[in-house]
């Protein structure tokens, strides 16, 4: 029996589906422009200027991206680009809506000579969307000569295999950049930002994510034979040799390092999960998953024991029971949570003494570990307010949640579009991931298979970690919501991710090279 990939390829029509793609893009734009219109109609009773400026801008970018894809990747999966544009557009409309709410604050802050960093900014988001889609276009153009891998200015996903270790090193450097003094920047407790003069803040982890996928794919393609075949069999599982375990342990230590030094639980979880899943794809060994989960458990346990990692313990405690932490809670030795919100005596004592922040000082005085669940709770309140049908765009109060436009944009949308809207959103993510997985299955090369599979899975994992966090399914960790959160790094990295998938799907779905008739009976059956 032929493999699933062969079956899929056998049924692939080798058709250009550009018309379908255009119709879907048009639909995504209708969605986006309606969202913008609804924001204005609900708030002011008129079509907002932003619909033309921002929504129109996105439409122009979308059409440009479509034409580049039609020209340079005509056999690409027709769904990927429209789905990404739909997500980008809905997120953009929400950021615009939140910007309208906070623009008064901006003006006020500017008058007072202050710079407000914690506010939605639709203008910046348009620029980032532009940069993101421009990168999508650039990536497609650069990767256009997939058949001639030595063509000038051509870097196909396949060429990355040649630079596996260089890319791996690059990923590690990217991840470590925020620790460099003077360059790094601690925001909201996690040191994951770098400041570049003239450009602003960047989160290198978003780019490192893609580089890591390329590195893992290249590394595992080389090692998969050894890692999958040699080992002891214990019951249904066959365990690898100790020396094959080495690299896994290195990655594990590396992720723990990210966790400890940058206090970035989300990224650590993302990378480790990515690695374990790619290891499984490469070797088909369930034992790797067991070992991975075991190491994860050990890592979390260690993190919970270390005194300076108290916040892991806290996050788990907040996750299980967020209410006592609302407006500041203090976890004491015996697992008891003491509120140190502004209505308590001890809080007022430190407030009067000018301690900053008073809640933390009060908690230290009590001898506990301080944490605040306000953001999580406010996000949940947002979801609760939305209910099944939502309040309608522009008619809720999602701006009450801190970072409603970035980490918590999912709950903002949940408030105004309701359960219905969120289901649609999650389905879009699921579709992108599944289209990516299909591309992986259809790819003609082990390296590309692993690459596409890894890229698709890392997207799914990221969506799971951030959305699971804000909906209290898992402990909250800070990651961006792909294509929706306000911010440049995430937008750029995810558009490159889509470009890679589009390019790979084009390669997988395009007809096999025609046999040159002059060579007589020679016939190419399959490229792999």
């Amino acid at each position, binding site marked *: 029996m032929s*493999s*699933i*990939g062969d079956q899929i390829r056998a049924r692939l029509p080798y058709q250009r589906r550009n018309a379908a793609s255009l119709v879907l893009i048009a639909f995504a734009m209708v969605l986006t422009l309606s969202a913008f219109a609804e924001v204005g109609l609900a708030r002011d009773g008129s079509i907002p200027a932003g619909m033309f400026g921002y929504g129109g801008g996105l439409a122009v970018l979308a059409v440009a991206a479509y034409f580049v894809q039609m020209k340079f990747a005509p056999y690409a999966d027709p769904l990927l680009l429209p789905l990404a544009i739909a997500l980008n557009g809905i997120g953009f409309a929400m950021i615009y809506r939140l910007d309208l709410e906070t623009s008064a604050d901006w003006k006020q802050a500017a008058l007072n000579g202050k710079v407000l960093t914690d506010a939605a900014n639709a203008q910046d988001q348009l620029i980032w969307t532009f940069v993101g889609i421009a990168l999508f276009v650039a990536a497609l153009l650069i990767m256009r000569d997939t058949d001639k891998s030595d063509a000038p200015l051509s870097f196909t996903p396949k060429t990355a295999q040649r630079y596996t270790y260089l890319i791996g090193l690059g990923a590690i450097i990217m991840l470590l950049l925020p620790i460099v003094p003077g360059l790094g920047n601690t925001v909201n407790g996690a040191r994951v930002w770098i400041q570049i003069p003239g450009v602003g803040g960047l989160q290198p982890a978003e780019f490192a994510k893609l580089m890591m996928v390329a590195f893992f794919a290249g590394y595992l393609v080389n090692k*998969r*034979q050894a890692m*999958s075949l040699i080992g002891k069999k214990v019951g249904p599982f066959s365990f690898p040799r100790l020396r094959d375990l080495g690299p896994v342990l290195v990655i594990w230590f590396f992720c723990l390092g990210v966790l400890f030094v940058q206090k970035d639980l989300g990224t650590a979880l993302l990378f480790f999960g990515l690695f374990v*899943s790619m290891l*499984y*794809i*490469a*070797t*088909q060994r369930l034992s790797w998953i067991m070992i991975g989960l075991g190491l994860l458990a050990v890592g979390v346990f260690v993190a919970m024991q270390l005194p300076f990692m108290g916040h892991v313990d806290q996050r788990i405690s907040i996750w299980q029971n967020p*209410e006592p932490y*609302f*407006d500041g809670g203090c976890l004491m030795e015996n697992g008891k949570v003491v509120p140190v919100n502004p209505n308590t005596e001890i809080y007022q004592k430190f407030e009067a003494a000018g301690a900053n922040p008073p809640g933390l000082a009060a908690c230290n005085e009590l001898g506990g570990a301080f944490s605040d669940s306000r953001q999580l*709770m*406010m996000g*949940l*309140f947002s*979801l*609760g*307010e*939305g*209910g*099944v049908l939502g309040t309608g765009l522009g008619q809720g*109060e999602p701006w*009450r949640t801190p970072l409603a436009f970035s980490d918590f944009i999912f709950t903002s949308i*949940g408030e105004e579009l*309701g*359960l219905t809207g*969120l*289901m649609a959103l*999650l389905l879009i*993510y*699921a579709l992108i*991931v*599944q289209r990516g*997985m*299909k591309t*992986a*299955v259809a790819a003609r090369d*082990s390296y590309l*298979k*692993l690459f596409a*599979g890894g890229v*698709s*899975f890392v997207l*799914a*994992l990221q*969506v*799971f970690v951030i*959305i*699971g966090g804000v*909906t*209290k*399914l898992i402990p909250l960790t800070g990651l961006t919501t792909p294509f929706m959160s306000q911010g440049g790094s995430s937008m750029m990295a995810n558009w490159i991710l889509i470009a890679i998938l589009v390019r790979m799907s084009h390669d997988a779905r395009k007809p096999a090279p025609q046999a040159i008739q002059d060579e007589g009976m020679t016939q190419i059956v399959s490229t792999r």
Partner: protein
Amino acid sequence: MNMDKPIRRVAIFALLLIFGLMAQVNYVQGSQAEDLRTNASNPRLYSDIFKEPRGQISAGGEVLVSSKEIDEEEYGRVYKDGAVFSPVTGYFQGGATQVERAYSGLLSGDDTRIKNQRWFDTFIGKSAEGADLELSIDPKAQRTAYEQLKQATAPGRRGGAVVMDVETGALKVAASWPSVDPNEFANDPRADKSSKRLEQLNKGDGVQKPLIDNALSQTFPPGSSFKILMAALGLQEGMDASTPVDTSDLVLPESNIPLPDSHEHGACGGRAPLRAAFIESCNSSFGRMAMELTIQKMHDGGEKFGFGDRVEIEPNFFAAQSAIPVEVTTADGQTIKTGQDATARSGIGQENVRSTPLQMAMVAAAVANDGTIMKPYVVEKALAQDQSEVYGADPQEYGKAMSEGDAKALQDWMRGVVTEGTAGNLRGMNIAGKTGTAEQGEGIPNARWFVGFSPMDDPKYAFAVMTEGAGAGATGAGPVAGAIMRQVLK
């Protein structure tokens, strides 16, 4: 080796992750939504309430409280003469007090009494408009009371006045000094300075707690005005106006400390009929009476008048609890029984006896209304925006505190206080009552009372006035009561 199978499994796993998210979102937005919406920490609970204007509160044809749009679709409350009327209207700034709280549902339109009437509005998704309230308060008298209390009260101290219609229980006046103007924090309830101001007011200054009104929500020692209740108990025990009582100096049995009379001549010179002892307010005789009655009987007898009860003026709007305690619990948790000496002092409204001005007005109301106390109330009616009445006050009996005969006798005695007793200075003011001067400790001014009824010969209104300051009730509270009643009777 082919990787399609593990990719397919990972694809399924990725789908499961997203299905997990879907399940969680369904759980949160489906099952938990109601709990989250009503969670006490949810600021949205307090945000919607500013989005619709609340109904107006008026009294005597004057609109006292109304809503004003502060910015886009947000409303704050505006209080006319806020300091004068806030002991009754209370305030609304998210949280609410007094009438604003008691009828919050009707004022905001959330109440089913409105919603049922407006079922069509509800059906088409339009929120019901709030009802307007009309109070029983006499605004002119209330203003007089406020001005008078302000003048009569010593600096930094407190005063309160209550006037009640004895036949219905409707409150005509409930004034407090000092008071608070809710405009300071309720106009723009979301502003930072509003909450700061409220916080500051909540802390108060010395004994002055402006957010706590001194008419309904604060207790004071009633002093000799308490003798009305003692006399009523005495009459119930079979005494009458001519029953001779010992008014000679009383030395308290346990401590050997004398319980002095205010003067040693006239009725208080050694022996007198009960009526005379009452009119001249002889402490010794009432101290002896208290010890004979026992504190338990005083406590039980007081309950008929409302002592020991948080009198419910309107739903969710209670007066403070007045008390004639048989025992008290100290700050360090010890229980101290009210002994003989303390019982004697309780008999003259001192020791641990505490009363709100409202409670003393209810005592006077029992006398003025021939023994029956009506339940005090302050909201006459509520009108929906189409002027249909959605609520109307229904006067109810609070209780029968004494017999008609005893009440009639006491009416006569209280007239006597003005015509021939301690309140001679109030002659011509058409008020009758009982003076009271309670010592509140070294260096603290007296609580000066005048508790009674008006008009003198045909009692319609009961009142209680208390001001803190040097001197006695007849001069410190009596003229205030006179001025208020003149305005009420106009």
